[in-house]
């Protein structure tokens, strides 16, 4: 572990650490473009130059390993002057697109020019012109004039996705990023190139021209697209609601987690947020009689549900929970089922089309909390071991055979299940009362007698347990739409209304629910929101 001095401060770093990372450890930021910790060293941008004692000329920090006794200076006059020179070189042919470029506000030409440049430009000759607004794939659009040829995108496609779609063609100042003519950038992780591009050369097609980044708020969260639980940031537009076509969620970005997804997210997860602002969002409880559905208030809806629960015997109630629900939601649901004596509880609905999976991030299970549901025992054998109870298929059969007075469905799109559509339909028609609780309307909710609107995960906080057993927090990015409430809150109100005394039904914050669950379930022993923080915590084996 070499010890070196950076700007007069001594630091110790692991063997092999480059000077950009070593400087970071010493609290100094070395500006750079082409360096990225996930990728091979390119040494092309020449911006990361630093002064090193006993070395006559400044050296690039990215390709210099920290050695014992090295003395590094990142803020000498010579280094500052070199940075200013490098900024000028980078901007010689750069088009003045800021007013129309999505990158504005998070562009490292802007950021570094303001910090390290601030010279008067003297390039008055015609700049080199290259193709602009070229779609490379479904999610990426290229402006070759803006490109600073840092090659991060090329190295990403070679070294991370191993798909090699991108190259740098020609040479000199006619060098140009591009695809092999006629091909597209359509690997399942293409959106990440927009993140790693430091400038507005590669930008997100979905986000294009929607809203300026400085209007966005951000919250830390976890993707709900599959059981991997890639860490994300949710970027929301609350200040310019006439932008982004009125949608609240502007985009999702991956958040670094060394153990889960590193810097990356798959395209399905990245772009899987449109449902949050879709017009199919359930905003109000709905009461349906025959073909007529009417919006009702919670004051009417909850008592109706409570009455239905009281009127049915436990064996006439079926609860089909969902791995879309958080640990907190499932815990309150379990407590409620226990108190009611309901044994017909399950969460597993087999999909008709198996999910795709790869050896990178994508998991076949397209739900964020299957492992949580499993650990919390949301099954007949889990809640009341050895005492019978119907699983999901059993519940639907019972409903078809008119043995269920109440079928309480959470989130599932039963039309995407492996069960024949006719069977599902018959089940929904056979159950005396169907309650659907979820975020978006679907075929099942259209046939439910009572529809309760759930808050989306971005509209509340809670935890998911990923397939490896990592419990991760998602935090509130938005207020719930309409009258939607978090599932655990709806369930708590039901429990309280039924007269149950379990303190979890009196919880006012999801953290209280989590603390209750952590003190009871051995796998979660010792866990807390604070301890989980932003990188998660593993369940006990």
């Amino acid at each position, binding site marked *: 572990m070499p010890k070196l001095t950076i700007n007069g401060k001594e630091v110790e770093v692991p063997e092999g650490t480059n000077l950009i990372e070593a400087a970071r450890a010493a609290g100094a930021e070395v500006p750079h473009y082409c360096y990225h910790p996930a990728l091979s060293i390119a040494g092309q941008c020449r911006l990361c130059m630093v002064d090193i004692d006993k070395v006559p000329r400044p050296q690039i920090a990215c390709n210099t390993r920290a050695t014992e006794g090295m003395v590094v200076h990142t803020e000498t006059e010579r280094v500052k002057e070199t940075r200013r020179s490098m900024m000028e070189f980078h901007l010689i042919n750069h088009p003045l697109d800021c007013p129309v470029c999505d990158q504005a506000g998070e562009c490292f030409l802007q950021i570094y020019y303001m910090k390290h440049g601030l010279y008067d430009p003297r390039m008055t000759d015609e700049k080199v012109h290259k193709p602009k607004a070229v779609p490379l794939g479904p999610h990426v659009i290229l402006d070759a004039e803006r490109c600073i040829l840092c090659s991060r995108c090329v190295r990403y496609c070679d070294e991370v996705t191993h798909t*090699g779609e991108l190259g*740098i063609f020609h040479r000199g100042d006619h060098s140009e990023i591009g695809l*092999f003519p006629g*091909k597209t950038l359509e690997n399942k992780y293409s959106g990440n190139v927009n993140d790693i591009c430091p400038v507005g050369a590669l930008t997100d097609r979905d986000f294009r021209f929607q809203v300026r980044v400085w209007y966005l708020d951000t919250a830390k969260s976890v993707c709900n697209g599959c059981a991997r639980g890639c860490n994300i940031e949710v970027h929301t537009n609350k200040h310019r609601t006439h932008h982004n076509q009125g949608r609240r969620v502007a985009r999702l970005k991956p958040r670094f987690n060394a153990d889960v997804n590193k810097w990356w997210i798959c395209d399905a997860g990245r772009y899987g947020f449109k449902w949050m602002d879709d017009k199919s969002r359930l905003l109000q409880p709905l009461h349906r009689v025959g073909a007529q559905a009417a919006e009702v208030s919670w004051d009417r809806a909850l008592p109706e549900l409570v009455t239905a629960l009281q009127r049915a015997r436990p064996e006439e109630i079926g609860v089909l929970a969902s791995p879309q629900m958080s640990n907190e939601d499932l815990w309150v649901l379990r407590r409620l089922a226990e108190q009611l004596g309901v044994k017909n509880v399950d969460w597993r609905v087999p999909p008709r089309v198996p999910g795709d999976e790869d050896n990178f991030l994508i998991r076949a299970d397209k739900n964020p909390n299957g492992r949580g549901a499993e650990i919390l025992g949301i099954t007949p054998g889990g809640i009341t071991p050895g005492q019978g109870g119907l699983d999901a298929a059993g519940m639907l059969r019972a409903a078809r055979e008119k043995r269920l007075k109440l079928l309480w469905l959470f989130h599932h799109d039963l039309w995407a299940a492996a069960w024949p559509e006719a069977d599902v339909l018959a089940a929904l028609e056979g159950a005396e009362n169907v309650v659907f609780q979820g975020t978006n309307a679907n075929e099942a909710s259209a046939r439910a007698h009572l529809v309760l609107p759930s808050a989306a995960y971005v509209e509340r906080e809670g935890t998911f347990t990923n397939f490896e057993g990592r419990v991760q927090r998602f935090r509130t990015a938005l207020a719930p739409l309409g009258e939607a409430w978090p599932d655990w809150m709806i369930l708590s109100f039901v429990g309280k209304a039924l007269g149950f005394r379990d303190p979890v039904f009196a919880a006012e914050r999801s953290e209280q629910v989590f603390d209750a669950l952590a003190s009871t379930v051995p796998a979660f022993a010792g866990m807390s929101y604070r301890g989980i923080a932003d990188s998660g915590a593993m369940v006990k084996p």
Partner: protein
Amino acid sequence: MSDARNPQFTPEQLAEIRRLQGLYPDKRGALLPVLHLAQEVYGYVSLEVEEYVAGLFELSPAHVHEVVTFYTLFFQKPKGRHVVSVCHNLSCHLMNAKGIIGHLEDRLGVAPGETTPDGRITLLTVECLCACEQAPMMQVDDRYEGNLTPEKVDRILDGLP
């Protein structure tokens, strides 16, 4: 006739390619020699040839395209039956390369970078061919022609079928 839009090497050519690949510790080292070979066979390196060659090297087509667009000797479009490359670098410039280039433009009726309409000659201006002792000079297909005068240029052009 070898079709650059539908490339398919013969067994002999494929054997030669394997032999070339075997000369290098990593077969990718044979890429330039094989692209030269492909250009000889197909007349130029079309996108179809690039993709075909990429397959023979297990490289992504984009990386073959990088190589083809980087080097000046690979033609991405059909070229004339003859390629006339006139040097316009320093020593040749000192010895009136400009006049020779102007003369060729007049005689051939094309600008550098273009091919005569009858497909006979592609005219190019190039950087130093390292025959400065014969300045001004040009490369005609495989051979160097130096100590050029307009008359000598005419004689050379007349001799090209």
